[in-house]
């Protein structure tokens, strides 16, 4: 039995590695995704353009202007001459926000009265607008404290655990360990049976002494092997190139990854078993992978979803393993928590793998 499985595994690996197209699917998509995700995926605000309408001739108006110009997230800060220009500036997205300082601004402050600064933000970019508003409000609060000579309302001390400077890479790159292994594994396994069906070799395999379960093991191995290789590669990239501190237990991460990959492989083989052509298998993988990534907590937090959808995400292996990958990396996630998030993965694998095996036997045309 082992001899048969071993032969099948060797054959599967050779079939992928000897084919230039197969080698491409293993190398190009992960690298492309690494570049796009790691560099483009960010919720931070950098290089934002800001406009200022400063109708005040006094000191405090120009102080606010000066501090905004000095702030790091803003690239171009330019002046508007009149309030009338605000609409066009926002409408045409020449600036994300316009800071409007009224005529008697410094005079009010001099008189010890309350003064206000209007900030007009582009709501079409709700997330960035909100973050920019936070920065501007901080600057204004600081100026306010200077103006009134009071130490009060110094913003509360905030400590960010696990990622003191809230660097976005620290979130995305460990997350890639989970998402990219998902995409690699799903493609490799989804194509494996469909390819043989198209070539006509699958019948040959079924009439041989191989049992369906042996076929499943043999077909699962390449996905497992490449999943581990890619996973390891991204752990390495995260720790060495992005210099993200690895705080947890590597064996624990690898152990959990085994069940994660099994769950994904189960789904991949299931897609493969019901697809007649490679074309359908790719589409099937795509139809599975896009919701899996979107509803995993990687694009936006699971807790923001409606509750019925949160329940739905329980069958998404990526959702569970994302917690493990990010947690072990940054938070030194304890074994109990790893186990708690691995449990559902075991369950998913226990359902999908046997189902795939059953379909192998069932679906021969």
């Amino acid at each position, binding site marked *: 039995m082992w*001899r*048969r499985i*071993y*032969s*099948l595994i*060797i*054959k599967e690996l*050779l*079939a992928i590695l*000897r*084919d230039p197209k*197969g080698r491409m699917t293993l190398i190009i998509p992960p690298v492309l995704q690494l570049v796009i995700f790691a560099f483009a995926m960010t919720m931070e605000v950098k290089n934002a353009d800001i406009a200022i309408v400063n109708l005040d001739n006094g000191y405090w108006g120009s102080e606010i202007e000066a501090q905004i110009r000095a702030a790091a997230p803003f690239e171009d800060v330019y002046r508007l001459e009149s309030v009338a220009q605000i609409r066009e500036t926002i409408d045409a997205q020449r600036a994300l926000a316009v800071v409007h300082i009224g005529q008697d601004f410094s005079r009010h402050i001099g008189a010890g009265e309350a003064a206000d600064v209007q900030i007009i933000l582009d709501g079409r970019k709700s997330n960035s607008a909100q973050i920019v508003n936070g920065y501007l409000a901080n600057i204004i609060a600081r100026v306010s404290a200077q103006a009134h000579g009071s130490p009060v309302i110094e913003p509360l001390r905030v400590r960010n655990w696990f990622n003191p400077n809230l660097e976005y890479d620290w979130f995305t790159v460990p997350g890639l360990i989970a998402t990219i292994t998902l995409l690699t594994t799903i493609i490799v396994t989804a194509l494996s049976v469909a390819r043989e069906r198209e*070539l*006509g*070799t699958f*019948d*040959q*395999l*079924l*009439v*041989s*002494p*191989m*049992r369906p379960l042996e076929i499943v093991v043999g077909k699962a191995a390449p996905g497992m092997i490449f999943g581990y290789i890619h996973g390891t590669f991204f752990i390495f990239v995260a720790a060495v190139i992005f210099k993200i501190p690895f705080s947890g237990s590597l064996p624990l991460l690898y152990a959990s990854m085994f069940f994660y990959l099994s769950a994904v492989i189960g789904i991949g083989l299931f897609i493969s078993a019901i697809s007649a052509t490679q074309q359908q298998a790719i589409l099937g993988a795509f139809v599975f992978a896009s919701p899996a990534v979107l509803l995993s907590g990687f694009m936006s937090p699971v807790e923001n979803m409606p509750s019925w959808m949160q329940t739905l995400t329980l069958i998404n292996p990526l959702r569970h393993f994302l917690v493990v990958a990010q947690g072990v990396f940054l938070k030194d996630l304890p074994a109990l928590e790893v186990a708690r998030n691995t449990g559902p993965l075991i369950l998913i694998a226990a359902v999908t793998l046997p189902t795939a095996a059953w379909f192998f036997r069932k679906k*021969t045309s």
Partner: protein
Amino acid sequence: MQNDPFIRIENVTKRFASNAPPALDSIDGEIATGRITGLVGPDGAGKTTLIRLLTGLSRPDEGRVLVNGKDATQSHNTLHRMIGYMPQKFGLYEDLTVQENLDIYANLKGLPAAERQTTFAELLEFTDLARFTGRLAGALSGGMKQKLGLACALLKRPRLLLLDEPSVGVDPISRRELWRMVQGLVNESMAVVWSTAYLDEAERCNHVLLLNEGKLLFAGPPAELTRRVEGRVFVAKPSPAERRTVLSRLLGDNLVSDAIILGDAIRILVQDKTSVADGAPPPAVVEVAGVLEPVPPRFEDAFVDALGGGPEGSSPLADAMTSHTDDGRPAVEARGLTKRYGDFTAAGDISFSIKRGEIFGLLGPNGAGKSTTFKMLCGLLTPSEGEGRVAGFDLRTATADARGRLGYMAQKFSLYGELSVAQNLEFFSGVYGLSRNRARQRIETMLEVFDLENYRRISAKTLPLGFKQRLALAAALLHEPDVLFLDEPTSGVDPITRREFWSHINALTAKNVAVLVTTHFMEEAEYCDRISLIYRGRTISEGTPDDLKNAIRSPETEAPTMEDAFIELVRRSDAKEAA
């Protein structure tokens, strides 16, 4: 004008890769109006490449193709107004109906609206498709697809009709109809090119260009080639039990150029120099084969002779296989096998049994139920009723090891194209659970027997077709099965390779291996000991090839061919059904 041919092919060479031999190597030829020009050769001979050059869709690396005096690649706009082209894969839109396909091609070719109704009516009548105008092209049978493809190609009366393998995947009855239709079309204003791998079709063409591995072997009327072997073809009738041994001895004889089994008889082509002037066969051959009766030559005899004769008779495979013991029980048994899909019966009540050392053929057109029967026996499909046993096991329920008694060679020699020859063999030896030592030893033997040693490290997909076939057979025989299943084992290969293949199979029967063959190919059926003729899911006749032929012998058809038998038996079955 009479002397100027419609198409002149001048010294045309076409290469696809610089390191491979050319797909077409310095071809010269002529295609004239008013006749059917056959483009004849096995798969990979260069037929499709040549047709594409004629359409101007592809340009030659050297030489040129002149259509009506103009270079095909320079004038393809005018050219495309005068050709009707039916590519190998029909060129039909399978998601569209028959009428929609006709409409598309009518519009693309600019058929004037006024002529449309009459032209459609004519073509639908001609192709007998009028009843099916609303049906999706993908749901038509192979024969009907070809007729529709032909109808589309014929819109706007082309001056040049190019048909690329129109008879592939078509049952003999439709094949004859198609041929009659095309023959009826030929007149002084139309040239027809018909490409085919079937040599019996070549015989019926007015003119042939015979290609093999990119080279032109012969150009001219087929009878001219056939005449070269006149007086050298004989038929012998040794006792049925001995005919395979006799065949092998004949092929080993220097005096014999070629010999094949035709049912109970052996057809022999003797070497040129040995042919005695008065047409009597050489005595040495008579000694081996018994009484020899002279028969008229066929195109295939001449083709094999042109290629340098048939293969050596003895298969080295015989020494590489151990003999199975014959326990007298049937090796394969089908009892009332039935498969239904809804109210459609794909296979109904099919029964037969195969003895050890016997070659049994399931013969029938595509879609008749051969593959369904075959798959039920392998355990790939669950029968709705009935039971199939292979080597005493019901493979659907038997243990995995029981499946190790079966060798299986899938259609089109499905192998792992990315893997090398040796890796393919290693894989199958592992799957069949051969121990490492034994696997190594068997792989070496197979590489030697099938002459694959030089290809050991070559990816299977780059092998020539004949070698692919050998590798597929080698992979199916590594574990020395009791029973061998072959699905269309020699379709598309050249006649020499086909002869070699059957000499291997003959060697296996001597070792008590039972062989089940499915085929729609009449020539393959001739090699079988017994045939079951399957039509519309039922067995309509069973017996030796000669039984089947004798069943339809009549004063009009004194020497019926397998194809005649097939057509007549199907006709009778239809008549009975109608009654």
